[in-house]
C-alpha cells in the first residue's frame, strides 16, 4: 500500500449497533485506489453491515466513513456500486438485459449513444457478441451470465469502488474463476477498487491485494494477501486458513461453536473463549491473563500489517 495516495475509502472507528447488538464495533479500514481488499470472517462477524454502511444504507452509531477524503454523502454515491451474492434476485425479471444496463446510463444522464454504450458494457463484462443479449430477459440466460449482467449494470455507472458481497458463492465452481478473472481485469483496465466480502480464502488468493480479517465487529488482522495466507499471525486467521480443504498439510483447528451473541461481547480479547492458542496452554501466564482480562483493541486505521492479539503484540 502506497502511503502518498489518498485512500479511496477510509472507515474510521465505525460503530453500528442494533439495540444491544454491536454488529460493527470499532472497525477501521482503508481501500486504496486500484486495490482489491478482501474482507473475510464468519457469518455474524459484521462484514455485511460494514459494507452497507460504506454504501450509505446504514445509519452509523458513531465513527467516520470518507470517500476520496471527503465525508460520505448521506445518499448513495454513484461512485460506489454493489454486486450481490445472488444475481437472480438482483435483476428485475421484467426488464430486458438492455433495459437493465441502460437504466444506469439514464440515472447518470449520459448524453452518448445509449445502444453503443450498453453494447460496450456488455462486451466488457464478457457477454459477446452483445447484440445477442440485448433483448433477452434474465431467466433466459445462465447464472454466470446473470452475474456478468449485474457487473455490466454496475460498471456503466463508472464507479470507483465496487462492493462485492460473496460474488461467486452461489455460482457453479466452473464459472467462479471466470467471474473472478473479470473482476480482476476491470481493476487493471479501469483503476477500479473492489472491497470483496467473502469467507473464501481461495478467492482472496485469486484476486485480492490485501486482506482484512473481521471478528465480532472489528478488524483483528490485516496485511498483504501473501503475508496473511503464508504466515497468519492472529490465531483466528490461522484457524480460518486451516479449515480450507486445499490446505491439507496444515493441522486443522476447527473452532468449536459459532460466533458469540453480539449483545454479550466476551471480556478481554473477544476471541479468547474460542482461541486455540490460549487453550493450548503454551502461553506465558502473564500473557494468558491479559487475553482473558484486557482488550487488545482493534487493528488501527493506518496499520499496513497488524494483528490484534496479545501474544503477537507482546511477543
Amino acid at each position, binding site marked *: 500500500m502506497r502511503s502518498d495516495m489518498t485512500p479511496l475509502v477510509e472507515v474510521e472507528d465505525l460503530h453500528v449497533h442494533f439495540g444491544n447488538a454491536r454488529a460493527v464495533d470499532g472497525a477501521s479500514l482503508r481501500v486504496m485506489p486500484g486495490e482489491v481488499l478482501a474482507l473475510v470472517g464468519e457469518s455474524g462477524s459484521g462484514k455485511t453491515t460494514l459494507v452497507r454502511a460504506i454504501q450509505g444504507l446504514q445509519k452509523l452509531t458513531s465513527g467516520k466513513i470518507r470517500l476520496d477524503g471527503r465525508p460520505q454523502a448521506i445518499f448513495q454515491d454513484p461512485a460506489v456500486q454493489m454486486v450481490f451474492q445472488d444475481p437472480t434476485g438482483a435483476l428485475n425479471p421484467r426488464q430486458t438485459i438492455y433495459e437493465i444496463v441502460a437504466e444506469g446510463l439514464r440515472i447518470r444522464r449520459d448524453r452518448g449513444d445509449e445502444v453503443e454504450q450498453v453494447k460496450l458494457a456488455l462486451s466488457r463484462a464478457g457477454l459477446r457478441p452483445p447484440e445477442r443479449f440485448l433483448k433477452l430477459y434474465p431467466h433466459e440466460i445462465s447464472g454466470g451470465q446473470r452475474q456478468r449482467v449485474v457487473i455490466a449494470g454496475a460498471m456503466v455507472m463508472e464507479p470507483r469502488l465496487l462492493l462485492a458481497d460473496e460474488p461467486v458463492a452461489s455460482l457453479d465452481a466452473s464459472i*467462479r474463476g*471466470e467471474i473472478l478473472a473479470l473482476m480482476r481485469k476491470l481493476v487493471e483496465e479501469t483503476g477500479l477498487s473492489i472491497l470483496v466480502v467473502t469467507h473464501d*480464502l481461495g478467492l482472496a488468493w485469486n484476486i485480492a491485494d490485501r486482506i482484512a480479517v473481521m471478528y465480532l465487529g472489528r478488524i483483528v488482522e490485516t496485511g498483504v*494477501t501473501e503475508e496473511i495466507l503464508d504466515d497468519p499471525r492472529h490465531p483466528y486467521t490461522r484457524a480460518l486458513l486451516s*479449515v480450507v480443504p*486445499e490446505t491439507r498439510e496444515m493441522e486443522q483447528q476447527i473452532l468449536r461453536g*459459532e460466533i458469540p451473541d453480539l449483545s454479550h461481547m466476551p471480556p478481554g480479547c473477544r476471541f479468547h473463549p474460542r482461541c486455540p492458542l490460549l487453550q493450548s496452554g503454551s502461553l506465558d501466564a502473564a500473557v494468558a491473563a491479559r487475553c482473558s482480562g484486557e482488550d487488545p483493541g482493534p487493528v488501527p486505521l493506518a496499520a499496513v500489517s497488524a494483528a490484534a492479539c496479545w501474544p503477537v503484540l507482546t511477543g
Partner: protein
Amino acid sequence: MNGPLLSVSDLKVTYHTAGGPVPAVRGVSFDLDKGDSLGLAGESGCGKSTLAGAILRLLPAGTDIEGRVTLDGKDVLSLNPGGLRAVRWTSGAIVFQGALHALNPVQSVGDQIAEPMLVHRTARSAKEARFRTEELLGRVGLPGWRADSFPHQLSGGQRQRVLIAMALACDPLLLIADEPTTALDLMVQAQVLALLEELKAERDLTLMFITHDLSVLTYACRRLAVMYAGRVVEYGPAWEVFESAAHPYTRGLAAAFPTIGDMSSRMRPSGLGGDPPSPDALPGGCPFHPRCPLAHDACLPVEPELRSAGEERSAACVLI
C-alpha cells in the same frame, strides 16, 4: 452380506416436461462397498441430485427410471410402496441441501427426528424415541434440550446438524448428503465435515457426498465420480483425481479451487469457459467439446465411453 452395499447399473432417468422428455441421467454405473465413501461432483444440471433421488426413488411421479439399483440386497426400482418405505431411512437416508426448507417450521426439531423412528417402529414408544432423539442430538453436537426448539430458533449450522441427526434416526447403512455444507460458513462447514467423518467411522456408515466443490469432496471422500451432462466422465481415488485429473473437465473444476500458496494461481483465477449444456439440448459427440480447451475433430463423431486411465481410474475422453 456379500457384494457392494449399493450397486447402480446403467441408470437412466428421464423427466417428462411440457417441452418434451429431458434426459437428466444417461447411463451411470458404480458400486459402493460398505464403509466406503464416494463423492459425486459436477455443475448444476449435471444430474447428480437426480441420481441421488433415483437411488431412494424420491423423484416426481411420472419420471422414467431405467436400469438397476441394488441397495442392501434389495432391488430398489422394483420394490412395492411398503418395501420402499422400509428401505428409505433404514437402508439409506438423505441429508438435503438448504437446511431451512427441509425442516417443518411448525414442529419442534425433536418431534421431527423422532417421527421416522415411530413410523418405522425402530423405537417402541414415544418415550424411547424421545430418549434416542436426545442421544442423537448430543451425538451431532447439540444439547438435548434443543429437541424442544423450532427450526427458526436455530442457526444454519445447527439446522444442518438436526438434519444429520434426523437422517441417522433409523440407523441407516447408507447416508446420502446432497450439498450439506454449501450454504454454510467455512468454519461451520469444517465442523459438519468433521462430524460426518466421525459418524462414518463410528457407525461404519457408507457415505455418498454430492457437491460442486471438488476440494470438499477430496477432503471428505475416498473415491470421486465427476458427472457431466448426465454421465460419469471421470472416476477414481479422490486425491489422485483432484491432483492429476485425466479428463479436461475435471481439470477445469479442480482449477476453480486454487491451492493457497501456489504462485501460479496468485492473481490468476481460472475456470472453464461457457456454461453447462441444457439436458434437453446436448451437443453431439462428446458433450463437453464446445467448452473443452483440448477439443479436436476426434471429439465430434461419438460420445466417448469411460475407459481405463490407470489403476482404479477411468475417464471418458478420447485423449486417454
